[in-house]
């Protein structure tokens, strides 16, 4: 600190980051302090050195190298941009079509809601769990059969696919664009 003037204040004064009142107060304080004037002169010399530093000439034209490595994907075709929307619509349709089947799965095989497809008879979840508990208790593997129809497998695979797409951040992300944003592009 130089007579009440901190080094920070002198820096902010030179950077033009003080408001008008502060600027006038600091300017007045500087005129009263030879030490502050010396420090200010040092900083001004440094600032001038920055301003005076010339550019180094470019050793070689960078354009050919940059052009050769441009990797930006071409703009996606319109239909491809609609892919995530299509996925969502397809998933919604699946849920609507097989709502009854899904309900019946959760309620041990009984159809609760009308559905265009026959109700599904999936393994009883309660029995399934108790089978495993028994197996672990008795140190033997339970005998569980998966008697699923083809369309039931399709439902399970579709759900798994949707979950996977969500998990991989492929759903709701524009194709060809990274999902993260780099701070250097701010």
């Amino acid at each position, binding site marked *: 600190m130089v007579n009440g003037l901190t080094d920070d204040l002198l820096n902010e004064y030179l950077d033009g980051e003080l408001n008008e009142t502060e600027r006038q107060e600091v300017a007045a304080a500087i005129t009263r302090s030879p030490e502050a004037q010396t420090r200010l002169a040092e*900083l001004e010399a*440094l600032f001038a050195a920055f301003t*005076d530093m010339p550019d180094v000439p*470019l050793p070689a034209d*960078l354009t050919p190298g*940059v052009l050769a490595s441009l990797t930006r994907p071409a703009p996606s075709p319109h239909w491809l941009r609609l892919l995530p929307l299509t996925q969502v619509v397809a998933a919604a349709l699946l849920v609507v079509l097989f709502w009854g089947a899904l309900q019946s799965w959760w309620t041990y095989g009984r159809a609760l809601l009308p559905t265009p497809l026959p109700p599904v008879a999936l393994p009883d979840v309660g029995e399934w769990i108790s089978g495993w508990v028994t197996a672990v208790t008795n140190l033997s593997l339970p005998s569980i059969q998966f008697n699923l129809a083809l369309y039931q497998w399709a439902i399970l695979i579709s759900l798994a696919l949707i979950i996977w797409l969500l998990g991989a951040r492929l759903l709701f992300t524009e194709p060809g664009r990274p999902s993260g944003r780099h701070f*250097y592009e701010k």
Partner: protein
Amino acid sequence: MAQGDDPATQNDEPALLRRAQQGDEMAFAELVRRHQTAVFNVAYRLFGRRQDAEDAAQEAFLRAYQALDRFDLSRPFAPWIKRITANLCLNWLESERVRPQVTADVSEQSTVWNDWAATVPTPEQTLLHREQASRLRNAILQLSPTYRAVIEYRHFQEMSYDEIAIVMARPVSSVKSDLFRARKLLAEYMQHHETGEK
């Protein structure tokens, strides 16, 4: 003044940028030609090594091209590409992808002194300025990556404390503290080497 900063060449820049956004590589090549010296110098001030600076400049242009869709055409290109370059260099320095360099590898004899020709009357003064520029370049290279970056942003890219804080994702108080400390170190280095040479 770098070509990219010349107002005469900036008139058609929005059109070039628009074409580049639409995938016109030749338009982007023209932008590279205009701004490559300024971009190279950002990297050179932070690295001090010509080869590293060339690599960083090239990488910065690539990243700019990939992010071009998000560039606001109403804003000038030069500050944006220089900021990308400085951030990239800072990342490389912090991740130690670039080896530390404490002296610049280009002699000040070969720097661009055209601007000086009109303002510096005597050969002695020219020599003095060259020595000062060389000292300052080397002094910056003595600083930590963070200090180098704040000096670059403030003095060469003319950003405010708030803008630097946003770009570096740090509090304004830290930016100010780093900037003032870096200046103090630079002034001491410059004074020490000036005294040492006399």
